């Protein structure tokens, strides 16, 4: 019997469209971002190496195909990061493959039981799936790699990572989750939203700020997955799409700032609004979308998620607070980077700035119809929702934004407090990473590069297997 390798369904097409839009925008942006022609060529090639496995993963019918395609796309991302920072890329690959080995255990079980995607996995396999996919989706505790990698990768690669690579973990979580509320994912989502918003408010590095904001927004999506209703799935996919696109846009924006001013530090930036008017306008739109101001697609998707989580009032409250933090952090980014006086007069605006702005405009063009017709995508996913713009929702959204402004003002009064907190937290993460890196050091020593040594290991392994199976 021949079973289909690939399946087409609305919940698969939507992420695929997201991937297509994001990859197209990255290609456009990368043309402007990379100064060197050979860099550009390599980026183009690797972009395709990323795109096609991703499509394969999104449309694959079985878990094994999904797994293989996802890991191939991970390798493509690794190569993209490695062209800039090799050590960070290796750490990314190590973390991802550690997760992948866990995922493989779950995938093996699911494949043997004949369970395809979007059929709830048995309870015994769920821990493997949650841990394995959690590394990709940056669930709390497994998110430690994300800020560093997203912060150091080249901007278009960060956009791909933050816009899509983490979403594929979420896609896997959607595909494995049961049709009932999961009391693991719901609190995890709330925690991620709060933690991410809090940390992003503390950051001084633009890209790390965006990375933590990604964790925060992923919290919304994970919680919507955990709701376990088809409404929740639709809300999660909707927010995935919107957030993926606009996070791509924000990373593009950060990349432009980095290119123009030569720094990512918010304290050293300033006054970019007059220097880069187009970028500033697009940033305003993206920030408004992230915060969820009325009239943006982010408002609709967050409203949908709140609708999906109506049964859990505590969670809704958590998200309200998280939204305040998000608003504060993006106000911070706006005022520090774009507002104020021009701190550095190093206005070497690259010639290819227009191409970079075109990448952002491309995403804007994709997002704009979503803002005008917020009910379109949910309808595509089979959910009819008409009351996007109720007065209460609008008021709530504007209220949280205002609260964010107040929080930022309060934070500004005591900047050294935030810095101290940040240092302490970052130091802890650093220490954790170093401890975790000890294991990989051992592997590195075993990996001597002596070809015969590898063969010896293989022969020994074969011998052990033979001894094991003959008794």
């Amino acid at each position: 019997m021949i079973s289909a390798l690939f399946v087409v369904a609305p919940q698969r097409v939507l992420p695929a469209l997201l991937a297509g839009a994001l990859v197209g925008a990255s290609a456009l942006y990368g043309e402007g971002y990379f100064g060197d022609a050979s860099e550009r060529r390599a980026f183009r090639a690797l972009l395709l190496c990323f795109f096609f496995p991703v499509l394969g993963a999104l449309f694959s019918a079985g878990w094994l195909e999904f797994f293989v395609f996802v890991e191939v796309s991970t390798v493509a991302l690794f190569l993209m990061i490695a062209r800039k920072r090799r050590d960070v890329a290796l750490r990314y690959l190590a973390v991802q493959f550690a997760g992948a080995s866990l995922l493989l255990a779950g995938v093996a079980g699911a494949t043997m039981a004949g369970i395809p995607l979007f059929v709830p996995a048995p309870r015994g396999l769920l821990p493997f799936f949650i841990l394995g996919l959690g590394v990709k989706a940056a669930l709390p505790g497994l998110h430690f790699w994300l800020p560093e990698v997203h912060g150091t990768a080249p901007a278009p690669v960060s956009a791909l990572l933050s816009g899509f690579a983490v979403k594929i973990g979420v896609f896997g979580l959607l595909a494995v989750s049961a049709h009932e509320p999961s009391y693991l994912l719901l609190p995890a989502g709330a925690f991620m939203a709060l933690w991410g918003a809090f940390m992003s408010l503390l950051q001084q590095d633009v890209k790390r700020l965006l990375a933590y904001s990604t964790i925060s927004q992923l919290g919304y999506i994970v919680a919507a997955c955990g709701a376990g209703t088809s409404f929740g799935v639709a809300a999660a996919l909707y927010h995935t799409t919107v957030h993926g696109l606009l996070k791509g846009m924000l990373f593009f924006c950060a990349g432009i700032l980095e290119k123009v001013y030569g720094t990512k530090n918010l304290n050293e930036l300033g006054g970019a609004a007059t220097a880069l008017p187009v970028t500033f306008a697009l940033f305003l739109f993206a920030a408004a979308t992230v915060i969820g101001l009325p009239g943006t697609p982010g408002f609709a998707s967050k409203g949908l998620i709140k609708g999906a989580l109506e049964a859990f009032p505590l969670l809704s409250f958590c998200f309200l607070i998280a939204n305040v933090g998000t608003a504060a952090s993006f106000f911070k980014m706006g005022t520090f980077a774009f507002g104020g006086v021009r701190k550095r007069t190093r206005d070497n605006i690259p010639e290819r700035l227009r191409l970079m702005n075109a990448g952002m405009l491309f995403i804007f063009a994709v997002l704009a119809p979503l803002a005008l017709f917020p009910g379109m995508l949910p309808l595509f996913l089979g959910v009819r929702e008409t009351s996007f713009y109720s007065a209460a929702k609008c008021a709530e959204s504007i209220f949280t934004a205002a609260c964010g402004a107040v929080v930022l003002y309060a934070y500004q009064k005591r900047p050294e407090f935030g810095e101290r907190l940040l240092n302490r937290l970052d130091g802890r993460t650093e220490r954790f990473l170093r401890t975790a890196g000890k294991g990989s050091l051992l592997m590195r020593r075993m990996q001597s590069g002596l070809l015969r040594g590898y063969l010896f290991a293989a022969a020994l392994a074969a011998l052990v297997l033979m001894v094991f199976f003959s008794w």
Partner: protein
Amino acid sequence: MAIMSFITVSLLFSLGLFTVLTRRNAFKTVIGLTLMESAVLLLLISWAYIPDGWAPILPLKGGGVDPLLHAFTLTAIVIGACDLALAFAFIMKLNKFERTVDVDVFRRLKG
């Protein structure tokens, strides 16, 4: 008969493995690989043999031996020869850069 073949096969394979493990000369490595490949071919053919069977050329005068394994072995020989040729090309190319055929020197793959 089969026992004899199995003894030869296991000895030949281990000899090839020993060669690849202990010799540093790339040509010796190739010799070891060839021996391992030969062992596998011998195993396949001796496994295909059936006592009192005839070669698989029609018309048969009795029972025949297993022609399917013969076809596999044939494929394996041709592809093995191509692999070896590729290995020689690699040795020649690496020799051009490193000026040696010592496999321990070829450690550039170390990450």
